[in-house]
């Protein structure tokens, strides 16, 4: 059998999963950006036969599992074509790459590409989480300075985090606590819509990785982040400060069941959830990263997440690729 992984060359998350494959399993890493190095990608249809996908001239048959990981997102200026053709070439490359995402309908996808795209919408996530029974903090996503001012004024203290997945050049943005008394550039929201959310005081912060119906719960944390003038409330900052820690933990059965239900309702086979447990023992849903990072949790806690992903990719019986086509 074949397992196809769509990702950037050198992705360190691939070998830990591949080591669990049996000797009759062929791993094929498709790095769409390498088409510019001549690693070709083709789709062929005939009047009578099934669709055929080939990579570097080899037909990809007997594909049991497809893992959509973290391929490079190319930008037009980086393409090795004349400047007048860069946007054109990028558009063609994107169209070809997108074709890959609707192939292999009988394979297990971790996860369906289009389900990942849909699930990255925070508004959709929070509404779904609430409907399933998770507790969700008061949240405002907006480009409206007036609504933002009112939200912050009403709560007194809240956290703010960017909607953009990419950071500005030369700097990073974390979830940050703000107070109503602090002068802030609310007019800047028209060019920078963000998420405002009630500030929770955590007794524990949880990173919960779910693969199918297997739940791997970790408590995460670190020391106080020290950034002058910026009250960071984000455990990712602890990694850069060298104080990050993670350890295996337990969580209520009902919360685990809700996580699995959330994935099923989203058409996902994988999710990396972030929760806060407050000092009253109440668990708050913050977000689900539909294609989130997990290897650092396995490396730190020893929980067998890579084995679970490998197991899912090689079990055809779990096939549920929806090919739903559009985010």
């Amino acid at each position, binding site marked *: 059998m074949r397992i196809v992984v769509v990702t*950037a060359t050198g992705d*360190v*998350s691939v070998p830990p999963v591949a080591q669990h494959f049996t000797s009759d399993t062929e791993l094929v890493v498709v790095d769409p950006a390498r088409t510019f190095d001549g690693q070709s990608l083709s789709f062929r249809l005939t009047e009578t036969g099934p669709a055929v996908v080939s990579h570097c001239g080899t037909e990809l048959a007997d594909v049991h599992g497809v893992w959509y990981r*973290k*391929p*490079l*997102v*190319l*930008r037009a200026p980086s393409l090795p074509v004349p400047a007048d053709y860069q946007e054109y070439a990028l558009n063609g490359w994107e169209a070809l790459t997108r074709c890959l995402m609707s192939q292999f309908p009988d394979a297990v996808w971790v996860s369906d590409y289009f389900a990942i795209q849909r699930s*990255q919408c925070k508004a959709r996530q929070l509404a779904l989480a609430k409907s399933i029974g998770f507790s969700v903090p008061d949240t405002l996503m907006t480009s409206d300075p007036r609504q933002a001012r009112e939200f912050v004024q009403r709560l007194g203290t809240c956290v*703010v985090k*960017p909607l953009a*997945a*990419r*950071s*500005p050049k*030369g*700097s*990073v*943005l*974390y979830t*940050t606590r*703000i107070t109503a008394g602090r002068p*802030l*550039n*609310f*007019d*800047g*929201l*028209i*060019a*920078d819509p*963000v998420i405002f959310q009630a500030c929770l005081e955590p007794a524990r912060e949880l990173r919960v990785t779910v693969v199918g119906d297997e739940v791997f719960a970790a408590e995460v944390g*670190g020391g106080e982040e020290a*950034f002058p003038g*910026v009250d*960071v409330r984000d455990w*990712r*900052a*602890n*990694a*850069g*400060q*060298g*104080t*990050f*820690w*993670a350890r295996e933990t337990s969580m209520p059965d009902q919360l685990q069941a809700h996580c699995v239900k959330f994935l099923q309702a989203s058409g996902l086979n994988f999710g*990396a959830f972030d929760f806060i447990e407050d000092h009253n023992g109440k668990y708050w849903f913050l*977000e689900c*990263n539909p*294609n*989130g*990072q997990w*290897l*650092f949790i396995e*490396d*730190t806690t020893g929980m067998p997440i890579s084995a679970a992903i490998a197991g899912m990719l090689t079990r055809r019986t779990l096939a549920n690729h929806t090919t739903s086509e559009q985010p």
Partner: protein
Amino acid sequence: MQQIVPFMAALAIPADAVVAEIASCPAAAAFSRTTIDVKTTDNEGSDD
């Protein structure tokens, strides 16, 4: 058109301020090794 200063600009942290010495912290090293560095690469998604 007049340039707009983004809301989050006042809350941005210089990238070099968050890259401290992490060799003595195995969990932090694991995080840095296994997640996508959003400051230097352009992979799908982020370090979430």
